[in-house]
């Protein structure tokens, strides 16, 4: 395609989530719009099947919220922007991994327009936001579906920019479960320029009991079709203290994880990315261990 212009579409502006759901169900090829950054860009690039109806959430009152705390858990509404989350003291103090991750997004315009939920729903394997949310075991509450159990963020994607969401699904909020005991995390990424999309993302979240790692989440993005948890690395930490050897072993396990299958692209090379999984996981674990030791 040599030209980028927005194709024609109908814009529906519901004022309640119910009307939004009804509009999505009753029309042809539909899409939800939050900030519109990814959606409109995709439409301009002329994907195979652009929506003919766009349902914007922007006129529905009460969707821009970040509620809760570390112990009780956090809820993020559909119109809460990345910037809102970055500036939230609740997030900064209670969920520092998420704070660190959104702070790595350096385009203020993108953070001001873009929503957290919109970012997640795109399903890109290089999302800073989704990497951090998986480390926090976040879940997506969908309207009118799975009324009992929300969808774990780790299970959202099936491939690059492919999610299990139907076009009619609306994410009502993202919830992060509360944490009782001590946990220590870190978020690191690598980019070409600071505002660029990451070539590699890593988040770790360690749960400590009596100086021993009771549970661990090690999340790696941009080196496989979807963001994943390096389970062998996580296993290697459980029940151990955070000494250098243990950390090194976990980092190597993440690097050599069968799911780590990076590619060459314009941002980096497969071999560099693979090597860096080991380095970044080690550094993230060291950072978390330092915090644990200081606590």
């Amino acid at each position: 395609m040599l030209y980028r212009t927005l194709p024609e579409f109908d814009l529906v502006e519901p004022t309640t989530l119910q009307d939004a759901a009804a509009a999505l169900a009753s029309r042809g090829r539909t899409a939800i719009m939050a900030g519109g950054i990814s959606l409109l860009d995709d439409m301009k690039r002329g994907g195979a099947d652009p929506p003919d109806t766009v349902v914007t959430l922007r006129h529905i009152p009460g969707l821009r919220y970040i509620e809760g705390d570390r112990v009780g858990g956090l809820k993020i509404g559909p119109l809460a922007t990345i910037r809102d989350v970055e500036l939230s003291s609740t997030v900064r103090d209670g969920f520092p991994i998420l704070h660190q991750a959104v702070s790595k997004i350096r385009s203020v315009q993108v953070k001001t327009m873009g929503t957290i939920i919109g970012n997640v729903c795109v399903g890109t394997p290089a999302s800073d936001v989704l990497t951090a949310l998986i480390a926090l075991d976040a879940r997506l509450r969908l309207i009118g579906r799975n009324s009992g159990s929300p969808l774990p963020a780790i299970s959202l994607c099936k491939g690059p920019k492919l999610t299990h969401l139907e076009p009619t699904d609306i994410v009502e909020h993202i919830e992060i479960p509360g944490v009782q005991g001590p946990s220590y995390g870190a978020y690191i990424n690598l980019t070409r320029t600071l505002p660029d999309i990451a070539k590699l993302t890593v988040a770790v979240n360690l749960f400590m009991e009596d100086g021993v790692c009771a549970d661990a989440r090690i999340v790696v993005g941009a080196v496989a079709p979807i963001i994943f948890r390096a389970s062998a690395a996580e296993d290697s930490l459980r029940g151990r203290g955070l000494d250098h050897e243990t950390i090194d072993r976990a980092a190597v396990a993440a690097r050599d994880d069968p799911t780590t299958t990076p590619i060459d692209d314009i941002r980096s090379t497969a071999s560099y990315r693979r090597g860096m999984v080991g380095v970044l996981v080690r550094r993230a674990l060291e950072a978390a261990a330092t915090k644990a030791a200081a606590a």
Partner: protein
Amino acid sequence: MLETLNVVGARMPLPEAYEKATGRATYCSTMRLPGMLVGKVLRSPHPHARVAKVDYSKAESLPGVAAVVSGQDVKSKVYTKNVMTYQLPGGEIQDMTLFGDRVRYKGDEVAAVAAVDEPTARRALSLIEVEYEVLPAVFTVDDAIAEDAPVIHDFAPDNTPVSAVPTFCYGDAAKAFEESAVVAGGWYTTSKQIQAGMESAACVADYQHGKLTVWSQSQLPHMAKRMLAHVLDLPEADVRVIQPYAGAGFGAGCDLNAEPIAAVLAMKAGAPVQVWYSRDEDFNNRLTREHVAKVHMRVGLAADGTPKALEAHYWGDAGSYMCKTASGCGVALASNITPYEWEAMDQKLSATYTNHVGGGAMRGFGGMQSSFVRETIVDEAIAQLGMDPIEWRMKHHRNVGGLGWFPSARITSCALEECLTIGAERIGWKEKWNKPQSGTKRRGVGVACMAWLSGAQPMLLEHSNATLKFNADGSATLLVSPGRVGQGVEGALAQIAAEVLTIPYERINVIAGDTDITGFDIGTHASRGVYCIGKAVLAAATEAKEQFLQRAAEKLGLSNDTLVLEDGVISSTADQNCFVTLEEIALGLIYGFEHDCNQIVAHATVEPEDFAPPWQAGFAEVEVDIETGVVEVVKWITVHDIGRAINPSTVEGQLEGATCQGMGFALFEDPVISLSDGYMLTDGFDKYKIMSSVDLPDHEAILVEMGDPSGPFGAKSVGEAGLFLQAPAIANAIYDAVGIRLRDLPMTPERVLAAIQAKEAGV
């Protein structure tokens, strides 16, 4: 020290600043003429093919389509988008034909339409039926010079029309190498950086009453006019090129884009046509930086450090059309001459065709590749001798009267030693250089130097004209024709005129960028604006001053040489009460009733003889992460020998902006060309990253003002100078930090880490 002046040297606001900041400035892309049509280009989907047939009958009959053009509508004239070619008979290689029967890269022009709006134009493009006979294609120099490579241009059966041509050689290099104590060098590669202007390629053409007017982003409006007359077979008198403000420059305006196509469409449609590339179209079809793909260089130094020999072979990847690739290599070689006192130089250049977009010009033309390679190899040789790279440079640079860029030119001024001294102090060279480093993050400092030019005289025609026309109130219109690419030259030219005439800066109204109004000017390239056009303005203003003095002498009944001009008043040196103001004189010359009206119109033509090299030292402090290969520039310092800063704010602005581009070239800017079809995969700013404000490290631009005897008020150039030294100084700093020598640009973390690992493995 230079004497202090009134207007020259002051930090004046640019004349265009208000218009631009308030959104009132007009650009080719924002122009709207009554009845203006949208032009779109049909581009080849194949990297190499014969165009067997083009049938546009269906497109032509689509309602809303005003004109469709292809090969059958144009005279088949061989031409080149490199408008500089047209300054000399013969010129550079011309290898393009408009809508020719052969396409040579994916995106090459096949046909075009003009329609009432963009959707109609696009629909019309899809209705054009083209039969292609697809040919094999090659995308790298190495593939293009292989035995069985497809021939891209019939006149160059080996795809290399410029093959190892000796350029700027002197002395006995073989002997000088034999006498060298150390020899360093090897093969280097550099990136095909993109100019990355905010405005993608845009132009408007209108053909009325037998006269063609083209609004173009060209930095060389008069040369654009000559090229358009050639390709369209029109008398030059019937072509007028107007340059509104351009939202893209950095060399991108040195070659034309769709101007000939817009013109052909406008001539057929009988209405104005605007062609404005979309961003991906721009990335893929606007000529990139002159692409010096590979460089082989060696230098030899005597045991005491004396520079013995420099040998180089610059090999350009021309892409599908030569445009500026060979001349880029030539300039690269020329720019190696000035900095150091080599006993012998042996240089040659080659340029090879491949099937991707051609290489045009970008700021730092040729000098980028030279500075990186030369300054890192020199650093390597100096290190082998165990010398301090600053001391070596202090001692062995050329000096006033020494060999210039082009063999007949001589150096007129040199403040390199001052630049080195100031920069070394600011960066903390003594404390930081050559200090052993350990740990994961290692710091180092590096230095590099260069000498550039202020116009490419005497090699190229650098003819400029300036006209000052006085109003009855003593203000003046200054007619000049630089390229208007946002570089601030118009303000500096007004400062020069205001200084001479002792009138306020605001009273000089600069009119530029219209070939029917202004005198001839080559335009903006080779960092020539303030120096060359400034000399013309200086001469015109001096001539105007003489005319004022003459008239004052007549009115006051005194002789010229007893009069002085100060603050807009001409008075007698003997009697302060005997005076007349410029305003009174100007009024009388236009509205006098004594039958002696004679409006002051002063004109000057210049063809400068000297090239007035600005010198520069660049200093980098870096921190290298040895586990990730990430290079953080901790501090950047440019110390620039400007001669005299006509407007220090613009000079600093030029240097700081260039620091961004230079760091991009050094560290990450890399247009990725597909090896399967030659298409540029990095076809937007989401993929092709340039430096943003958050990426820019702590940096300083320091000016050294010692004057140049040939420059207007001592000024030399700054347009390109600021972006040469980031790559070599950063590379040298990386060596200081971790002991690796990088030979390929950009120096990405991937490459840095690979080099660190190779060093550790002892490879």
